[in-house]
């Protein structure tokens, strides 16, 4: 097989610039094999000259750059193989410097800020505006973004009320809601404009946020609060800040749904406008009976199902605790009449559901917190205390379904 004809058997090998000499010096300093470096740079220079003559300087430069990039790993490997320890150190330092420079430039490029491109309402829970529940002055703020979505720190946004309720809005964006209503406000920055709605819903007070009993494993449920406006009516649009004191017991998601996680008690701070309130949350551990409760089981609840005329007898733990029976059905008449003193007990009033205790235990009936509920505060001094729950009424359904909760008060 004969040899292929050469493109330019007697090519003129004029160096591109003086840079090959410098490049050669640098590469030799980094430990490259002299023959390898000289041949490689020589070929690059020769081909560059040929290509710049035939294809033009631009195409030749493009080829040269591409070839340098493609050959770099081989040059590095050659320098690693042939270099002295000192040269390898210089090579490592050079690679590190190049890598760091490249990383810094890349990060700087990606995070560079451009001119303002859009204005967004900051802190609004709606896309078209914000809800103001404060009675006092509130600073409106806008997010200024560039085209890449980077947030820009700009304080020169100007505001002006356009229409709607005549609420005062300063050019700096301070507004005071003295009445219920909506106003459209325009934010401006240079040539950028953004119209948005201020929903004025000043809250005068937060009605008792109440409390809630939950059971571990229950699905998440909406946490509700009642906020009252200046006109005495309920406020329908609320921008509330909720914070759970112990988020290992329960959590609140962004849509205000509370999810019980483990048994225990915690507190929820509620902040609406410039008003604050709190809510108590108890999460109970589900059990089938109160028998054999461990000392660390402080909040437990058991399901109750009683046919007419039936009763259950459960042993109770020692110590101080609350007992609460709650019927699930509204058809069940309120459970009334409970007392248990000393070693004997008896219902005080005829009721379809009777809760009594026996043994070394003393209980005091608590006020009903809700219809169909029956509560007692008990002290069991020694083991042997028993709870007796009886459904003996003649009216109502044939069976009652409910739950019995036990909440320990003493420290274990």
């Amino acid at each position, binding site marked *: *097989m*004969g*040899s*292929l004809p*050469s*493109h330019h*058997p*007697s090519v*003129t*090998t*004029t*160096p591109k610039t003086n840079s090959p000499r410098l490049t050669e010096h640098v590469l030799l300093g980094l430990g490259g*094999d002299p*023959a*390898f470096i000289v*041949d*490689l740079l*020589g*070929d*690059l*220079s*020769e*081909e560059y000259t040929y290509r710049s003559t035939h294809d033009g300087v631009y195409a030749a430069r493009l080829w040269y750059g591409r*070839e340098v990039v*493609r*050959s*770099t*790993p*081989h*040059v590095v*490997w*050659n320098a690693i193989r042939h270099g002295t320890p000192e040269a390898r150190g210089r090579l490592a330092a050079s690679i590190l410097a190049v890598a760091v420079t490249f990383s810094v430039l890349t990060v700087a490029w990606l995070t560079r800020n451009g001119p303002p491109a859009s204005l967004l309402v900051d802190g609004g829970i709606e896309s078209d505006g914000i809800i103001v529940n404060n009675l006092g002055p509130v600073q409106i703020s806008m997010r200024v973004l560039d085209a890449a979505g980077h947030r820009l720190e700009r304080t020169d946004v100007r505001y002006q009320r356009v229409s709607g309720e005549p609420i005062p809005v300063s050019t700096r964006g301070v507004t005071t809601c003295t009445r219920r209503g909506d106003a459209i406000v325009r934010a401006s920055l240079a040539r950028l404009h953004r119209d948005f709605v201020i929903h004025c819903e000043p809250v005068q007070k937060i009605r008792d946020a109440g409390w809630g009993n939950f059971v571990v494993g229950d699905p998440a449920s909406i946490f509700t609060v009642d906020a009252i406006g200046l006109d005495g009516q309920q406020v329908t649009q609320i921008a509330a800040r909720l914070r759970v004191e112990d988020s290992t017991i329960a959590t609140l998601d962004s849509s205000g749904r509370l999810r019980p996680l483990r048994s225990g008690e915690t507190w929820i701070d509620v902040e609406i406008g410039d008003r604050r309130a709190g809510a108590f949350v108890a999460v109970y551990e589900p059990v089938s009976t109160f028998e054999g409760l461990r000392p660390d089981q402080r909040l437990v609840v058991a399901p109750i199902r009683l046919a007419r005329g039936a009763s259950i007898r459960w042993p109770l733990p020692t110590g101080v605790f609350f007992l609460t029976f709650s019927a699930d059905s509204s058809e069940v008449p309120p459970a009334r009449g409970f007392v248990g003193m000393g070693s004997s007990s008896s219902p005080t009033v005829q009721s379809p559901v009777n809760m009594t205790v026996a043994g070394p235990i003393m209980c005091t009936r608590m006020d009903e917190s809700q219809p169909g509920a029956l509560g007692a505060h008990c002290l069991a001094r020694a083991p042997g205390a028993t709870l007796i729950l009886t459904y003996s009424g003649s009216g109502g359904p044939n069976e009652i379904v409910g739950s019995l909760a036990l909440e320990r008060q003493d420290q274990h």
Partner: protein
Amino acid sequence: MRCSDLSYNLRLMPTATLGALELTTLLAVARLKDEAYGLAIKRDLAARTGRDYSVGALYTTLQRLEDKGLLTSRRSEPLPVRGGRSRRHFTLTGAGSRALREAERHSASIWAGIGKPLRPRLP
């Protein structure tokens, strides 16, 4: 069929093996004879295999073949032009020639018994 598609791992010497690029480079040197210098070999490989190997990859391979004793090289006189440089010309050694013959035999042996329909057309 492209030569680079073949993967030869022949044990030529106790410490040397021959890869696909090494084999095609050896063949190019054998073909180019007195004109076997870097750029000429690069063009020959591109023309015959369709692959444009970088200058760095080519010289790494040439250096490896020289280390294995399959090639030897000599420097030419500087070219008679302004700034002319000397080229390094490569020549097949006896071991290199034996390696090529061995590769050919090996190729023939591994294709032996394969019917014509399955056998690719060699260029």
